[in-house]
């Protein structure tokens, strides 16, 4: 068998974005030994690209805000399919986690009184997003990174985990390889925290970085955990549509939070007509009212005007844009116009500096003078590993999760700004959960040689196949299947075709081959990433087929309404004998006192 090196830790954290770093810091602070593995260099994880802000009911700008309102907004945004306990913990603890970041050195934009400034965002009742211009994610990751390096956490950079190792039912460690030279590594660990992020690279138009290949989703499934809510894939309404090389790149919701206006090619401000009945009265009725709201927000004043229709929830805005383009009212490059150029140029540059540069440098567009062209881009997966809200533990003893790789927190649709707060609230909880679990264990679980041998063989195989397929070509096929059959709008016959084609492709992926050495060989890495994406793609497609209703980000053309019965169940995906299986499991029921917070009746149309 090929050689491998061995490292021993109490807790191994896989992934070093916001959730992984926060988990590692917490576990380490509680006195256990921590290893932190990341596929990229430290500080480059996808969190770095988060722009708009962190949602936390600090009530620095709108004194009326509080955790109950944040909780309610989150549940409403998630179409009540969220795990209520996660949404509650999240709303209650986010303010402390944000203050903690500040005390660790993060430098947020300030209010006139010198407190953390907060901006408006889609679906949030009050101005709630703490931010640093439009580079909030960078601020967060750098703060956590600098905190982490002084805590004695061992960081394994450019290292990919390909298998979790178990001792009977329990987690015993993980197997992986270093990208730099392909050497194998076994981490003996009593607990593993998955913080691997999302799945975006299976879609051709996505805001996600190359790392997002569903690693944690696949690792968890193979280790015996289940995934919930995989049908809920968020398309962010505003990605760049031109030039082709950056298609899908994110345009922060902060543009709309600062007053950006959406128009179609006929000049119509179309979002007014797509506001769902249930929430219509929360939004401005006229352009004039929307303008008064924006003016007041810029001046830092109170107003009775309601927020602009562009601040509707992401799922709704994405669908609206899609429909406008489909109806022939799109821009030359197949998007719609997003315009902030009517505002003072200097202010736009100050509040949205990276957007200004991004468009100027990549698209030759000066956003202080011209509108941007934008369209939906795959951005986030609400579904993921089912974990306990309080501790982050999955149904596999010793396996924990936090952040995008987990499911439940965001229900059927995530609100902007709720992701960064999710990372730090549940990163901390999972780190603590794992440390407590480790402390309660009597003996170190043992890694089995057989499992390690199988893991090595799996990685060696692509070099041995002589008649194999090019992994990049296979990824292009996967892109084509996902965008054609499992996109924004879904339908039974498409999903069935998609599932059949995914099955065929899974066979081809088993034959993916690569030449050359193991030294920083991206094609080799892709061979394994593909196997992860195939599993998650099946999970998404099958979950989408099974949910015969439209809810949140899941829009079925053949079932356009929400079905109250289906609002009480989660779709659960698990493996049995290597096969992807599905069943519906009951949604945890909210306690009475929280139910009281919801006065409005449930909508029957999905919007």
């Amino acid at each position: 068998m090929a050689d491998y090196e061995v490292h021993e830790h109490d807790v191994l954290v896989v992934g070093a974005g916001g959730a992984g770093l926060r988990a590692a810091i917490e576990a380490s602070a509680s006195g256990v030994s921590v290893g932190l593995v990341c596929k990229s260099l430290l500080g480059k994880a996808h969190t770095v690209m988060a722009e708009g802000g962190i949602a936390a009911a600090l009530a620095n700008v709108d004194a009326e805000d509080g955790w109950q309102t944040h909780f309610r907004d989150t549940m409403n945004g998630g179409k009540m399919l969220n795990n209520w306990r996660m949404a509650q913990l999240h709303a209650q603890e986010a303010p402390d986690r944000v203050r903690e970041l500040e005390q660790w050195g993060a430098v947020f934009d300030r209010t006139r009184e010198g407190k953390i400034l907060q901006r408006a965002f889609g679906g949030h009742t009050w101005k709630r997003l703490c931010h640093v211009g439009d580079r909030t994610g960078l601020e967060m990751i750098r703060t956590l990174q600098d905190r982490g390096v002084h805590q004695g956490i061992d960081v394994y950079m450019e290292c990919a985990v390909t298998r979790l190792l178990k001792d009977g039912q329990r987690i015993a460690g993980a197997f992986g390889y270093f990208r730099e030279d392909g050497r194998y590594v076994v981490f003996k660990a009593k607990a593993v925290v998955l913080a691997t992020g999302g799945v975006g690279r299976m879609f051709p138009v996505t805001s996600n970085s190359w790392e997002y290949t569903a690693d944690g989703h696949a690792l968890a499934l193979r280790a015996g955990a289940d995934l919930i809510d995989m049908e809920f894939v968020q398309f962010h309404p505003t990605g760049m549509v031109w030039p082709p090389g950056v298609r899908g790149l994110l345009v922060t919701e902060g543009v709309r939070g600062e007053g950006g206006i959406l128009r179609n090619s006929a000049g119509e401000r179309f979002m007014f007509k797509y506001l769902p009945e249930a929430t219509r009265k929360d939004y401005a009725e006229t352009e004039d009212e929307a303008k008064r709201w924006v003016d007041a927000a810029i001046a830092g004043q109170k107003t009775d005007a309601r927020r602009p229709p562009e601040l509707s929830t992401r799922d709704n805005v994405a669908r609206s844009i899609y429909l406008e383009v489909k109806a022939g009212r799109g821009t030359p490059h197949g998007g719609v116009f997003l315009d902030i150029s009517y505002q003072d140029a200097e202010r736009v540059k100050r509040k949205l500096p990276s957007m200004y540069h991004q468009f100027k440098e990549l698209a030759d567009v000066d956003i202080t003078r011209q509108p941007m062209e934008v369209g939906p881009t795959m951005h986030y997966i609400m579904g993921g590993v089912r974990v306990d809200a309080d501790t982050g533990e999955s149904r596999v003893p010793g396996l924990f999760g936090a952040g995008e790789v987990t499911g439940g927190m965001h229900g059927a649709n995530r609100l902007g700004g709720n992701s960064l707060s999710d990372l730090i609230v549940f990163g901390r909880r999972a780190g603590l959960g794992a440390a407590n679990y480790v402390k309660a264990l009597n003996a170190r679980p043992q890694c089995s040689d057989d499992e390690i041998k199988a893991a090595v063989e799996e990685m060696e195989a692509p070099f041995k196949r002589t008649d194999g397929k090019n992994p990049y070509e296979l990824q292009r096929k996967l892109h084509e299947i996902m965008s054609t059959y499992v996109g924004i709008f879904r339908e039974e016959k498409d999903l069935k075709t998609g599932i059949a084609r995914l099955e065929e492709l899974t066979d081809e992926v088993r034959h993916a081959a690569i030449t050359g050495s193991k030294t920083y060989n991206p094609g080799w890495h892709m061979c394994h990433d593909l196997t992860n994406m195939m599993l998650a793609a099946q999970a998404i497609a099958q979950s989408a087929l099974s949910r015969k209703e439209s809810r949140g980000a899941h829009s079925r053309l053949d079932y356009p309404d929400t079905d109250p019965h289906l609002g009480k169940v989660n779709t659960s995906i698990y493996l049995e004998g290597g096969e992807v299986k599905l069943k519906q499991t009951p949604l945890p029921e909210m306690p009475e006192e929280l139910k009281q917070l919801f006065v409005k009746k449930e909508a029957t149309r999905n919007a």
Partner: protein
Amino acid sequence: MPEAIMKVFRGISREAGEFKTYKVPVEEGMVVLDAIHYIQGFLDPELSVRWNCKAAKCGSCSAEVNGYPSLMCKTRMDRFPEGQEITVEPLKTFPLVKDLVTDVSWNYEVNKKIPPFTPKPDADWTFMQEDIERVQEFRKCIECFLCQDVCHVLRDHDRKDVFAGPRFFVRMAGLEMHPLDALNRAEFLKDHAGLGFCNITKCCTEVCPEEIHITDNAIIPLKERVVDEFYDPVLMFFKKIFGKS
């Protein structure tokens, strides 16, 4: 479709490696990283490159394009006249791993040694936007290490043993100028970070993709602090008498 001629460095050592030429179709608005991805996806799946965001936000895709330290995801192909060969090679200042990937781990070692943010014990966490403009400028750094690559103290003289480099002067300036930080890093800057080796050539500032005024806003004020602390005659006098500043 027009074609670009890409000359890309391939190999696992500077001596044994060589430039390979690839023809890549050019689309409107394309950047150098797109061309590299095209090569990976269609011509050579083994080509090694780092990238994450494709949006000049993560600082992963640093390389030398036609000899100039650049982010590949920000370098437009139409900057170069049609027909001109475009060479892409790894950063020179760091040891080569393979192709366009270099070993930048030294930077992470330097970072670990920097005395961390240490807030004043009585801080009430109120401070004004005007007091943090500078600090926020420094915190825009995406750790692309292009400034480290271009600085002659590292590039030509390889003084990684004594010199932290512009990236970390930016970081320390951000800490020193934080309105609530209580630590004084002057001694560290002078004796451990090698601030004195910098002779203000401003090459680092020129290549910074985040347009941080590294020399004027970070390095020069830090140098002034060190001078005030250690060489100011009035202060030295007081130090002699009272034993500390």
